């Protein structure tokens, strides 16, 4: 190896490693995160939540002003306050959150209400087979089939990790469906429309799969 090839080999080696990293680097974040002190990773995440929004601004909803409208195939449209939702049976779960772009947050502690309880309180008709979740962040929405929405770990969450849901995570109420990629877990849900067919949501109109099962959709 002559003098010149040392620098060139290092340079090309780095490029090669970086290119391979496109396919394999995700596992490196876990290692990186465990090497960094918690106080640092709270400010500068080596892994963990990324905050994605699509609208012109991020909704900022005062809990007292929050209303969840449920309409469509119901006896009569209903509107729930946050207190109304909290009065329904409280559900808790620990589940992982997978983003379609590759990042994962493990062991998130959620608390909220199951969809079945909301449907019951809203007087849903028996022919409902799809739900459209509309976000206060215009124009975001997404749909689930009734069967998907009634999975045992699907909820409308108002607490995360023991505290009221934070603004950037969809406060005061967001959808959580751990078995699908995160774009299905609509944030800032303020309207649920009950119908008979799912409609392509925001990201699905941009080419993502409607049934966003982990590891079985979106080419992943």
């Amino acid at each position: 190896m002559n003098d010149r090839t040392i620098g060139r080999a290092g340079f090309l080696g780095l490029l090669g490693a970086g290119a391979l990293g496109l396919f394999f680097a995700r596992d490196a974040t876990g290692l990186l995160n465990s090497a960094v002190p918690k106080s640092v990773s709270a400010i500068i995440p080596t892994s963990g939540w990324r905050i994605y929004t699509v609208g012109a601004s991020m909704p900022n909803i005062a809990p007292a002003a929050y209303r969840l409208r449920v309409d469509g195939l119901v006896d009569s449209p209903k509107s729930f306050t946050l207190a109304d939702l909290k009065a329904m049976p409280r559900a808790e779960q620990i589940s992982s959150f997978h983003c379609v772009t590759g990042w994962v947050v493990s062991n998130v502690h959620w608390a909220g209400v199951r969809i079945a309880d909301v449907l019951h309180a809203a007087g849903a008709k028996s022919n409902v087979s799809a739900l459209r979740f509309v976000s206060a962040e215009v124009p975001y929405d997404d749909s689930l089939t009734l069967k998907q929405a009634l999975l045992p770990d699907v909820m409308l969450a108002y607490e995360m990790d023991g505290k009221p849901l934070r603004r950037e995570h969809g406060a005061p109420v967001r959808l959580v469906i751990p078995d699908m990629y995160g774009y299905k877990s609509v944030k800032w849900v303020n309207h649920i429309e009950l119908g008979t067919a799912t409609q392509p949501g925001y990201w699905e109109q941009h080419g993502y799969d409607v049934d966003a099962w982990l590891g079985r959709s979106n080419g992943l």
Partner: protein
Amino acid sequence: MASRPRIERFTRTERLLHWTHATAFLTLLATGLILYLPALSTAISRRQLVKNVHIWVAVAWAIAIVLIIAAGNRKRLAADWREIETIDRDDRRWLRGRRAPQGRFNAGQKINALLTVAFALLFALSGFFLWLGERDHRFIFDGTGTVHDILTFLSVGLLVGHLYLAVIHPSTRYALRGMTTGEVDEAWARKHHAKWVEAEDGPPAR
């Protein structure tokens, strides 16, 4: 008082390339951090706007770099790259902390340049796939975001070191003039970049 003799270290092409890259990098870093850090994302919250600025600055960066290389002093840039790639015996001694005469770039500057170019290309590659994957999900790869993130951490580290050496460190901060005016103090250059000055001007007068 007569001004001290100076020697040209960087041509216009080299300086233009440096400052174009620096400006683009800082803009991309600022917008990138807004997209990446939850606290900043929440505070700014106009993600679409920031994302568009980030992407278009990246495109402008790539075009500008290609134009400067194509229209500038290519011979000089090729000579730079040849020197930067060459880590000779003196450089290896210098890197081990011993005294060794250095060329126009010292070994640390060579490594900084190699890393900067490699990081820029990898930023562009991973950034392109972040953009494409959002439009065509066949191009979503597991580690694209991670590579882009890790590059950010590494480049910020490199930038901090580079700024310290260029602006603060007593024996290297004279080099900053070379990147602004193009010229450096000849006596300083003779001390810190002996092989270069001797190749240009011959050995010091007795």
